[in-house]
């Protein structure tokens, strides 16, 4: 199997797996960090140690790091939790974001809107880039915007946004505006330092950096008021109720540390592979989407005219190559994804997109094999389309 879908999830790093194995083999002691007794204290110690390691890896303070169950949950907590808390205080509680964000952002925006929060949309340019000028304009025009959420790396195009600059400009307009960045796709692909970025909230998740699925974090300014999205307990300083997993937190700590240590090495590796990937995609008449100058370094979204992306992804899968599609069928009618529409693709074009995303484990030899597989699959698809046209069969 050639795994080329690292923006969806990644393999478990052996060093992370060792941490989990260590946990499972090391203790069968009850492990609830909230308990006051000895077993609880021991769990608390391990859990807070993991928090400190993750926080350090992200350039954040331990008191400003809330563990959650997924990137989606972190984003919900950031946007819904912050806007609701601001509203209770009578502070500006509207949201400003773009249509190119992950569904967790888009659907949180929808929820907030249904609750009466103002939601404003920031246009992106034809490459999918957010310009500070456009952001300033909207923020200036709408006093009720309390939270701005802009993704750092787009999951489909791999666009890298200069959040630091954008944040500085936004704070220049209104010092008290709360800026959140969805950095789920940024972690491990580009150096990430919460303090240095200047944002107020940042969402990350373990499984995009070879950690386990089931643990993520919302990094935020210490003391930032967030209404909990879930109800039921005072864990995570009241921000995220529910018994936390020490095992997953420790595994996240290993994954986050490795991501911070190895980020340059991983970036150089995937950037080199990406150059080869772009060349091979173009050699097969694929149209690579997005702007090269914005590229974080591991993602190729490409359109193969005349080939439906979903079918192409299935055909590649049957030959042992894992990629994903650029269309969102879950909504019912097959449409181009929000990102593809935002950069101006039609629904038909959007349905022809596949996303190939590289990771640290991929090799040049894998890409050579992928080249052969892609060539064979495209020839098969294109000849089947021609057969259809010739026989006048159903479109």
């Amino acid at each position: 199997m050639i795994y080329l879908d690292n923006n969806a999830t990644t393999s478990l790093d052996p060093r992370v797996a060792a941490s989990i194995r260590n946990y499972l083999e090391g203790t069968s002691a009850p492990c609830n960090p909230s308990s006051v007794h000895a077993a609880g204290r021991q769990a608390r110690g391990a859990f807070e140690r993991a928090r400190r390691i993750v926080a350090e890896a992200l350039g954040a303070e331990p008191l400003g790091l809330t563990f959650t169950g997924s990137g989606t949950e972190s984003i919900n907590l950031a946007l819904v939790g912050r806007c609701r808390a601001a509203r209770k205080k009578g502070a500006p509680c509207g949201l400003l974001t773009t249509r190119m964000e992950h569904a967790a952002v888009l659907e949180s925006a929808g929820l907030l809107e249904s609750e009466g929060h103002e939601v404003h949309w920031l246009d992106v340019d034809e490459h999918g880039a957010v310009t500070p000028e456009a952001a300033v304009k909207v923020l200036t025009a709408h006093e009720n915007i309390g939270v701005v959420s802009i993704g750092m790396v787009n999951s489909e195009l791999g666009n890298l946004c200069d959040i630091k600059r954008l944040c500085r400009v936004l704070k220049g307009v209104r010092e008290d505006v709360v800026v959140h960045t969805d950095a789920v796709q940024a972690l491990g692909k580009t150096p990430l330092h919460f303090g240095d970025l200047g944002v107020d909230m940042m969402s990350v998740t373990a499984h995009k950096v070879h950690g386990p699925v089931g643990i993520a974090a919302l990094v935020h300014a210490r003391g930032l008021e967030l209404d909990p999205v879930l109800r039921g307990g005072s864990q995570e300083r009241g921000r995220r109720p529910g018994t936390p997993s020490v095992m997953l937190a420790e595994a996240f700590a290993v994954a986050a540390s490795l991501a911070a240590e190895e980020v340059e090495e991983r970036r150089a590796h995937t950037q080199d592979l990406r150059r080869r990937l772009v060349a091979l995609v173009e050699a097969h008449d694929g149209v690579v989407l997005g702007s090269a100058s914005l590229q974080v370094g591991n993602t190729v979204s490409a359109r193969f005219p005349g080939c439906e992306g979903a079918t192409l992804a299935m055909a590649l899968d049957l030959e042992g190559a894992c990629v994903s599609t650029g269309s969102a069928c879950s909504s019912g009618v097959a449409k181009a994804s929000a990102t593809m529409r935002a950069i101006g693709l039609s629904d038909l074009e959007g349905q022809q997109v596949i996303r190939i995303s590289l990771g640290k484990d991929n090799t040049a030899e894998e890409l050579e094999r992928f080249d052969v597989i892609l060539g064979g699959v495209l020839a098969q698809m294109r000849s089947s389309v021609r057969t259809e046209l010739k026989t006048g069969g159903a479109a």
Partner: protein
Amino acid sequence: MSGGVDSSVAAALLVEQGLEVVGMTMRLYDARDQPRRGRGGTCCSPAEVDLAQRACEQLGIPHYVVDEQQRFQEAVIDDFAREYAAGRTPNPCARCNEHVKFGPLLTRARALGATYMATGHYARIEDGALLRGVDPAKDQSYFLFAMGKDTLADVRFPLGGWTKERVRAYAQERHMPNWDAPDSQELCFVPDGDHGAVVERRAEALGLGADSLAEGEVIDEEGRSLGTHKGIHRVTVGQRRGLGVSSPRPRYVLRVLPEARQVVVGDAEALARRVLDVADFRRLDDLDDDTPIQCSVQIRHRSPAQPATLRVVGSRATVEFDAPVRAVAPGQAAVAFAGDRVLGGGWIESAR
């Protein structure tokens, strides 16, 4: 693979033959909100997709779900609404076979490099001909005439020689997850049996005008008003019950007059028809143009084919039955057979 036992057993038989098999389920409409009444009652619900997925997992073959909601909506459900609003009785299963299953799905199978596509239909393909399935209670060849002759070479029906009983026994022996799933009885997109409500919803969305579906007069052949019907889309030629007409002798729907929104009723004898005009006729066999062909013709699902003379001219055909047949509903399919072999079929335009 619908998630039902038939397509799952069809897949199992192909795997048993040593073929490389890929399972595919089409999501045809949004069934998330529909009430479920027993396992396997409707297709396309998350539970059905899950059953198909489990069957594939058991067989050790890949399974994909493809979205065909838009095509199904346009080619099948919208057509269903338009036909009823025009006073005809549509045949959505045959439409689906033509426009969804043996069209885009087959195209996709070819694109994936498949040598052929198989389904769980009860019909046989032998020497390039489409034949009835051997289980007379399950035979689905009537719905398959529109798949087209060229398509036959690329399609297999592994259950054509099987009875439903044997299919279930096979699935039970192998502990297949859906071995006891109930047979689908209704149209998959009308799970509660209220087809009138579906027509009304779609007609409104299509802007067909509420007028055409409003209640109207039930009249006799002399034009005398006998009562009020609840909309022409709730009426089919040959129907006897639910007309809101009290009469000492049974009254049957003879005709629907969409412009006047009237339904004409009369005696059973007045339902008799000898000659059908058939449009959009597809040949599944080599039929000479404008030459009378002795055959038998079926005009409804689960109703025997009757001896007739078929004459095909271009894409149109006329059928003359040896003896009058009753309750011919325009919009239904007329399918010609020579014994078990399907010669071709088309859509009933009118009957005399």
